[in-house]
């Protein structure tokens, strides 16, 4: 087991508002980690900094002991919480794009998943429903053999029936040495696949623990604990 990601005193301010507040975090390889917190807790801000879409105000962020940059982007596969692809393009065009830019992209795996979900590669994204677009994005992200998958709300926009399939896609398509960081507030749906959870509130880590430890120490599910911790 090796350290993939390390944040030290990581902070992000937007004007006078602090979205991420001196976070210290270490993600090891071979884990599925749930990044859990209420809306506006700083989950997406943290994820965007990991992917180089936001610059930290202070603190450090390292992926495999290197700052976020070209090298980290080769090994981190990122699913944003909204559609970010060119809507005029066909799925096959986007697969070619990913194949060209990401050395770890497995084209055969992508086409296989598309077939299983009955999505035609020749369809343009703009003709698809919101849920189908999200499935396509997830397929693209999970078709990479990355070291770290960062998934921001991967099941928020799809129907409950498709959630099981998506979770199955996530579970069956990552290397054992890789880690997955999943941000969501639909905890009950993903609880069974998580190894660890990080509770985040007001930009600070409230709790970081393994799921087994929570169950043993608290005698309750992560979902129940989350509802208690973040009770309004």
């Amino acid at each position, binding site marked *: 087991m090796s350290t993939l990601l390390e944040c030290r005193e990581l902070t992000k301010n*937007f004007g006078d508002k602090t979205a991420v507040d001196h976070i210290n975090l270490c993600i090891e390889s071979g884990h599925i980690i749930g990044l859990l917190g209420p809306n506006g807790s700083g989950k997406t801000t943290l994820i*965007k900094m990991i992917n180089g*879409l*936001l610059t930290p105000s202070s603190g450090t962020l390292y992926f495999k002991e290197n700052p976020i940059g*070209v090298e980290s982007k080769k090994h981190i596969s990122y699913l944003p919480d909204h559609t970010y692809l060119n809507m005029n393009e066909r799925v096959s065009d986007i697969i070619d794009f990913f194949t060209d*830019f990401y050395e770890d992209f497995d084209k055969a795996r992508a086409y296989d998943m598309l077939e299983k979900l009955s999505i035609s590669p020749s369809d343009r994204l703009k003709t698809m429903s919101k849920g189908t677009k999200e499935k396509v994005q997830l397929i693209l992200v999970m078709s990479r053999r990355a070291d770290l998958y960062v998934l921001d709300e991967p099941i928020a926009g799809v129907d409950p029936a498709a959630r099981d399939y998506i979770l199955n896609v996530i579970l069956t398509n990552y290397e054992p040495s890789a880690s997955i960081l999943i941000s969501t507030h639909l905890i009950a749906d993903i609880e069974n696949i998580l190894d660890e959870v990080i509770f985040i509130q007001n930009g600070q880590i409230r709790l970081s623990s393994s799921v087994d430890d929570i169950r043993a120490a608290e005698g309750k599910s992560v979902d129940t604990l989350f509802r208690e911790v973040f009770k309004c």
Partner: protein
Amino acid sequence: MLRKLFKYEFKSTARLMLMIYAIMAAVTVLGCIAMASSAMQSDDSPVREFFVILAMVSYVLGIFALFIVTYVYMCVHFYRTMYSDRGYLTHTLPVSHHSILNVKLLVSLFWMLCSILLLLLSVFALIAAASRGAVFQMDFSYFLSEFYRTSGMHFGALILYLLVAIILSCLLYLLMVFTSASIGQLFSQHKVAASVIAGVVLYFAEQIISTIIMVASGYVMLMNDISADTSAVSAVSEFSDIFTMLLTPTIIYSVILSVIYYVVCYRITKKHINLE
């Protein structure tokens, strides 16, 4: 990776640009038909005159609009792929910020220059149609020697000077908008409005600075001297000097400003990316 970036940047911009050029060609053909039919007819009926004037006005407006569309499209494309939703993909590609910026700049410059080239070809086609092909029979060697005799400057040197000035102007105005967009994305809200305001501020700042430089460098005094001197022969004989004196500072100024814009744009993209 750079080759791949170029490939996809061309691919994502080519569709609209080729449509623009097809419209440009159609407008040119219509203009040529109007010119040729006017040149072939000897009567000056008011209806014909009206048709020719209408065709010419449409031609000028059409060509001008198409050129503006090229520029605006390049600016919008930059903003969309860098700082809106599609920026998420652009900035998570395993390529350097330099590569992304260079490719976007060079591809935009390529389309701008293509538009200018097509504009010149279009005007030439119109002149050829109006002169019923007489322009092709022109004695170019006589023209070149006459040009040199009256201006004291080789025609090739003039074209080269203008070419450099045009490329640099395109580069400058593309970089100005790219920088405005980069400044605009720094804001938490109303990023597009902030980009537009930044663009307006940069444009006026640039105009003020260039005016100050022109006054300081004696350009205005030079222009006054020329207007005071009514002798055409004197003005023409000084053409070469005046031309060089005007364009050289413009070229140097464009280079300096372009470098400043590029550095600002690059620094913001690398150090202050803010895809909230």
